């Protein structure tokens, strides 16, 4: 997801880091506060997988940026030792977008919950997806508002009894996959907190993708909505059904497999009843806003030769005399 070169940033400022000796990134180095989550909370597994991926990828420590909105899941940055920010509820996508656009050298990771992402943050999610801004956005979906103690969330199923729906939720929930596909997210995956290997694979593929990469992870809130994801947990008698992706081996079996570049096919998968399927629903390599803005900058600066900022502004003023 990050780029080596940084011409996108004024005066290449972003590459001004001096080199001091460094050892391989290890778990201890990236561990911060001990997580405050409830024992058994699905979010622990997400944190563990994230640590593992960071170690495996051995990213430059100072180039790891973890961001979040507000919620139990959004406490994530406090548990990762790295540059980061704990922002406000529902607005972390534009925050991350600013960092991503100005600093292609960084690895921008965004974490949040279903309320943060699909309720108050829904519009930013859609426009971040549409503009295809380069980042990895991990949504820990527990079908409930955890931090505020059990209100109906946009993904709570009809019938769910919460503090704001004492007789059971009545509104049709958001379908995260449908929303992301129609909004234009260029990498869309779905996983489950109990499936750490799969989760890690999704995170790595999201990191390797250039663009707005979103992973929805069913992450159980043991305190306010226990057992809701058992139907997708083999250990609890459920079935964790994986999407079979096309191998392009033109075998007859391959006909039946899923083409991740086929938007309509992805939408069809999104129509499957709960718990649905897991894996990559959709992936497209349309240009990122990062690349498009960079191209505009390069074209513009080319015309200017290698004029300094002072010279450029002076020229402009000369025309105003």
């Amino acid at each position: 997801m990050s780029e080596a070169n940084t011409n996108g940033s004024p005066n290449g400022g972003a590459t001004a880091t001096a080199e001091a000796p460094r050892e391989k990134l290890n778990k201890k180095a990236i561990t911060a506060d001990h997580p405050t989550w409830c024992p058994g909370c699905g979010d622990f597994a997400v944190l563990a997988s994230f640590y593992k991926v960071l170690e495996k990828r051995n990213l430059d420590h100072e180039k790891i940026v973890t961001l979040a909105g507000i919620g139990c899941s959004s406490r994530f940055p406090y548990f990762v030792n790295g540059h980061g920010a704990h922002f406000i509820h529902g607005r972390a996508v534009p925050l991350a977008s600013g960092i991503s656009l100005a600093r292609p050298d960084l690895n921008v990771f965004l974490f949040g919950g279903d309320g943060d992402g699909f309720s108050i943050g829904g519009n930013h999610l859609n426009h971040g997806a549409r503009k295809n801004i380069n980042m990895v956005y991990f949504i820990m979906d527990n079908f409930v508002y955890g931090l505020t103690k059990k209100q109906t969330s946009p993904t709570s199923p009809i019938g769910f009894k919460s503090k704001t729906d004492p007789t059971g939720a009545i509104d049709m929930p958001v379908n995260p996959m449908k929303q992301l596909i129609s909004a234009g997210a260029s990498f869309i995956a779905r996983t489950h907190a109990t499936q750490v290997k799969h989760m890690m694979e999704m995170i790595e593929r999201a990191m390797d993708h250039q663009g707005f990469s979103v992973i929805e992870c069913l992450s159980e809130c043991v305190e306010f909505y226990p057992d809701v994801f058992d139907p997708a947990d083999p250990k609890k008698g459920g079935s964790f059904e994986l999407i079979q992706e096309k191998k392009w081996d033109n075998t007859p079996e391959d006909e039946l497999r899923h083409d991740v570049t086929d938007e309509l096919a992805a939408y069809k998968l999104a129509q499957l009843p709960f718990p649905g399927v897991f894996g990559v629903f959709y992936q497209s390599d349309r240009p990122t806003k990062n690349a498009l803005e960079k191209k505009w900058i390069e074209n513009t600066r080319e015309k200017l030769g290698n004029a300094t900022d002072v010279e450029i502004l002076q020229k402009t003023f000369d025309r105003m005399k």
Partner: protein
Amino acid sequence: FLKEGGVLLYDSDNVEPNLDDKRFVYVGVPITGLTVEALGGTAKDKGKNIFVLGLITKIFSLDVEKLKRIITEKFAGKDESIVNTALMAFQAGYAYPVGKVLTHRYQFEKIEKTGERPQITMDGNTALAFGLIAAGVRYGAGYPITPWSSVMEVLRTQLPKYGGIFVQAEDELGAVSLALGFSFSGYLAVTGSAGPGISLKTEAIGWASMAEMPLIICNIQRGGPSTGLPTNVEQSDLHQAIYGGHGDSPRVVLAASTVEDCFYIAIEAGRIARKYSTPVFILSDTSLATRIEAFDEPDLPKLMVDPKPDMTPRATHKPYPLDQITQHIPPGTRILDGKYPLMSGLEHDEMGHPTGSPKLHMAMTAKRRNKLRKLAEEIPVPEVYGDPNGDTLLIGWGSTYGPIHDAVKLGQENGEKMGALHLRHLHPLPNGLEKIFKNFKRIVTVEMNDQGVYGFGQLATILRARYCEPKIESFTKTDGLTFRVKEILQGVFPGKFVSLRGYSPNRPIAGNGEQDVNLARAESISQGAG
């Protein structure tokens, strides 16, 4: 067709004159756009032409009431809402601040004569945009709204030249969040808007105050409240800029006083935002935004700030040291002791991690407030214009600089012992104003906002609260028009200066509409279908 030195008034939305031809004074006014905005469309023959009529009425001080009568007659018989629309177009044109157009020629001549720095000519929003670039701002985000839009349009067009990006966001909540992302990434960023959009940024600006993130917020004020009078001038957002956030959320508030100052205030805002790691408001308004003025070309090599973020590795770093002013360091900076900082909207300890400690919340609250006290110590006390001591001190802020100073000149010519103080730093205020106050018998703020429930303008309210100085009163108006010199003198010295020539549209109900229901109601002519 137009004789040399003549004024060429053109629709900058549709015409692109050759500005190099220096024989004329060019006054570009986005006639189409302003008409669309004022009416919600150009409304056929009721629109642009009549907008221009209002514009000309203002420039040549023609008789407003008479022209309004003529318009009313011209469209008489038709649905009264048509008359209303025509009058709205006229009033929008009349309210449009073209500035001292007729003096431009004089200014151009001046260039030839003197050997001073050459002059450059532009409107306030353009000056603000280039001031931001000079201040080292390379990134920003916004959402369109009058009269802010042209700032973002200039930045969107210009920043790529400097390797920067300006993003049009999906809304103002997204815009301020993007800007905070840019600032967090190491590039002091700008966002901005007008009334409704600024209100939407309230929550995120509170985060900037709490997380101590540098940010510049431009509020190009217009007539309020709510959607209000989008194309008129008003100074009614001062209280919101200072007190708008929930909780005790200190922020800095500056106001530009002239078109030239729009350029320099941006540099001052950048300096403060960086040095004190804080959100800084720049207040401008409709009249500065669009008024075209010439000013000495800035000394760019001296002024321009290098935007490059400092990412030299640190041995160790505390984002929120209790005994120092926070300095934000961008991601990408190695911290050799391996302890990385977190910028947080939750109350936090010195490393940015959450705390529930009563003592820490008190200490951090004080830390955030005390940096404004430090700033106040370094703000110069502005000089008094006119009499350094005497009977009356006028205090102003923002775009009223010109008329207030002219009023002092005219007042002195007419025997008043008076002076004027104009504030650029509104929060925190410079220290030592009390020394100036004691030299005058009366202190009157002159403001384009409402007198409020207790009878004082927004700046007057702030000064009274700080100094408990009963001498402080205010002369305010909310007619959406810039001040006229005589209007100020008549308002500040009731009963005096009545003989002065010149039209003053709102004199009768200045300050209070109540007594003049019928007068005002006479303006309410859309009886058609309500």
